C-alpha cells in the first residue's frame, strides 16, 4: 500500500495551496485543471495582499484570517510580493466619521493600523488627491496571482505532486472514487483513481460537486477591474469607508489596477461587463488619485468570485470567508469541497481543508505550510 492518492480539481490559488499542503504531508497528489494555471477567478484578481482592514468592521473573522495569512505569506514567499503597505484615505467628513470604528475594528482584529498626517500621506504618495483629510497606514501588499499559484504548484511538484493542466473533468464516480478526465491536448479520455477527491474549482465548485451528486452553493458574483498603464502609487490606496465599488487602487509593476464592482452572473464562462461599471470605477478611483483619468487604459477584466452563500444575505454583505464541506453529508462520500475565500487566505484555507482530508484518510501528519518556504515560481511543475 502506498500513500493515499488525492485528486485536486482546480489549479487556482485554492487548488495550488491544497496541493502544496497535502504533498508535504504524504499523500500523492494529482491536480487537474481544465485550462492553464490561474485561468479562472485567481487570474482575474486585483492582486491585493489584504491586510484585512477592509473587512475589519463588517467581517472581523475574514479580517483576522487576512492579517494572519498576510504575515505568513511574507515569510513563505518573500520575493513574490510588492510590500509597500497600504493607505486608507478619507476625503469627506463622512469618511472621517468612519475613522474611529475603523481603527477600533483593526485593533480588535490585530491589524496594525497607524494614522498619519494628511501632509505626510501626500509626501509618500504625491498623486493622492490633495484634498485628502486623513490617512491610515496598514500592511497591505501586492502579489502576482499567476506566479502565486505557480510557486505553490512548483513546490508541490517538487514534493511529488503531478500537475495536469488542460485536463478537463468530465465525470466523477464518487462511490468508486474515480474521476473521468479528458486531456484537451490529445482529445483522449481516461480515468484517474483516487482515495479522495477535492473540489477546488472556485465559482465552478457547484458544477463540479454536481458531477459527483453532491451539493455546494456558491454565489457567482462577478467583479470588474480596469488596469491603467501607469504606476500611480506605491501603496495600495483604499477609500476610508464601508466597502463599495471602485474604491481600491492596486499598483503592480508599472501599472495600476482599479476596482472593483459586483453583480450576479448566470454564465460563469462568458461574463460581459455592464456598461456603467467602468464609469463607476473611474469615478471613485478618480477621487482617490485624480490622475487616473489621464492614464491610458491597458486592459479591462472581469471574473466571478466564488462567494460563500450565507443564508439570508446577498451581494456585498455575503461573507468573504470560506468553508470546507465533506460530501459524506449529502451522499457523495469521497468528495470534499473548498468554497469561498480569497487568494490572500489560500494557504490558511488549504490548511483547514488538508486537515479534514488527512483526518478522513488516516494520515497523521501536521500541516507544515506556515513555515515551509516556497520554491520560485520559475522552478517548474512538469506540466
Amino acid at each position: 500500500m502506498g500513500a493515499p492518492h488525492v485528486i485536486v480539481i482546480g489549479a487556482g490559488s485554492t487548488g495550488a495551496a491544497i496541493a502544496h499542503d497535502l504533498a508535504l504531508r504524504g499523500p500523492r497528489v494529482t491536480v487537474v485543471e481544465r485550462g492553464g494555471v490561474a485561468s479562472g477567478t485567481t487570474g482575474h484578481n486585483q492582486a491585493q495582499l489584504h491586510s484585512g482592514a477592509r473587512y475589519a468592521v463588517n467581517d472581523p473573522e475574514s479580517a483576522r484570517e487576512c492579517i494572519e495569512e498576510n504575515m505568513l505569506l511574507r515569510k513563505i514567499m518573500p520575493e513574490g510580493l510588492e510590500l509597500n503597505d497600504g493607505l486608507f484615505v478619507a476625503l469627506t467628513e463622512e469618511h472621517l466619521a468612519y475613522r474611529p470604528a475603523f481603527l477600533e475594528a483593526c485593533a480588535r482584529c490585530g491589524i496594525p493600523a497607524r494614522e498619519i498626517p494628511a501632509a505626510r500621506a501626500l509626501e509618500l504618495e504625491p498623486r493622492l488627491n490633495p484634498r485628502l483629510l486623513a490617512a491610515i497606514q496598514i500592511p497591505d501588499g501586492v502579489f502576482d496571482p499567476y506566479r502565486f499559484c505557480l510557486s505553490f504548484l512548483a513546490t508541490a511538484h517538487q514534493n511529488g505532486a503531478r500537475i495536469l493542466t488542460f485536463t478537463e473533468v468530465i465525470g466523477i464516480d464518487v462511490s468508486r472514487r474515480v474521476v473521468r478526465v479528458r486531456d484537451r491536448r490529445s482529445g483522449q479520455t481516461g480515468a484517474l483513481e483516487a482515495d479522495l477527491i477535492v473540489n477546488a474549482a472556485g465559482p465552478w465548485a457547484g458544477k463540479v460537486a454536481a458531477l459527483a451528486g453532491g451539493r455546494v452553493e456558491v454565489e457567482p458574483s462577478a467583479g470588474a477591474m480596469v488596469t491603467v498603464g501607469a504606476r500611480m502609487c506605491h501603496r495600495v490606496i483604499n477609500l476610508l469607508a464601508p466597502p463599495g465599488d471602485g474604491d481600491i487602487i492596486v499598483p503592480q509593476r508599472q501599472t495600476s489596477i482599479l476596482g472593483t464592482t459586483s453583480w450576479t452572473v448566470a454564465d460563469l464562462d462568458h461574463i460581459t461587463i455592464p456598461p456603467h461599471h467602468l464609469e463607476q470605477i473611474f469615478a471613485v478611483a478618480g477621487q482617490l488619485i485624480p490622475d487616473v483619468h489621464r492614464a491610458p487604459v491597458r486592459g479591462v477584466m472581469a471574473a466571478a468570485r466564488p462567494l460563500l452563500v450565507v443564508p439570508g444575505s446577498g451581494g456585498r454583505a455575503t461573507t468573504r470567508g470560506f468553508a470546507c464541506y465533506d460530501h459524506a453529508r449529502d451522499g457523495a462520500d469521497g468528495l470534499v469541497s473548498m468554497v469561498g475565500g480569497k487568494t490572500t487566505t489560500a494557504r490558511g484555507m488549504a490548511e483547514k481543508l488538508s486537515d479534514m482530508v488527512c483526518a478522513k484518510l488516516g494520515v497523521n501528519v501536521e500541516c507544515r505550510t506556515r513555515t515551509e518556504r516556497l520554491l520560485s515560481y520559475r522552478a517548474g511543475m512538469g506540466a
Partner: protein
Amino acid sequence: MNLTFTLRIRRPQGWADFTVTVPDDAYVLDALEAAERHDPTLLFRHACHHASCGSCGLRVNGRERLGCVTRVAEVASRGRVLKLEPLRNLPRLGDLLVDHQPLFSRIDAVDLPPIRAAASEAVAGPQPTRFENCIECGLCVSACPVAGSDSSYWGPAALAAAARVAAEPRGRDVASVLKLVDDEHGLWRCHGVFECTEVCPADVDPAGLIMGLRQRLLEGERQ
C-alpha cells in the same frame, strides 16, 4: 457597436476559421473566448487579462502581441481575417499553446530577483519596491531570428535578466551570472536585430540591456 470578422487560427491540423462578433472595444483574448464557444477544444492560455502574467502571448497577423491588451479594432476590421498563431521558438503544446518553462528555466538560471527598486516621485518614506518589468511572456524569444536558428542561444529575456542582475544584484552572485552569459551562445550570439525590444510589452529593452552588458564586460576586461 460590434465587430464581425474571421479569426484564422493555426491549429496542429491546419488553419481553422471562426467567424466571431465582439464589441468594438474587445481584446483579441475576448475574440478567442468567443471562438472557444463554437469549439471548446480550442487551446490557449490566459490568466491575468492585464499584461502582468505573460501567459497569453501569441502572434497576431504575424506580429508578437499579448492577446489580453491588444484591441481587436486595432488589428482587424469588418470582414477581414485576423490570423492567430502560437509564439515561435518555444515548444508547441497545441493550437496557440506553448511551453514557457524553457524560458522560465533560463531566467531561473541567472537567478533574477523578482522584486526590484521602484522609481519614486515621493518626497519622503522608504524606498518602494515592485515586481520586475519582465513578465516572461516570451514575445522577445519568438521575435528573435537568432533564437529561431539556434536553440542553445540564451535568448533576449534571459540575457536581459542577467543584465538586470548585474545592475541590481539584491544579494545575487553577479560574477557567476556574468560567467554564465559571457558565452558564444549567450551575450555574444546576439546580432543586434532589436526585434525583441520592438515587441516587448513591458519596457524591458532586452537588446539595449544586452549591448550594455557587453560594454560592461569589454570595459571590465580592459581593467
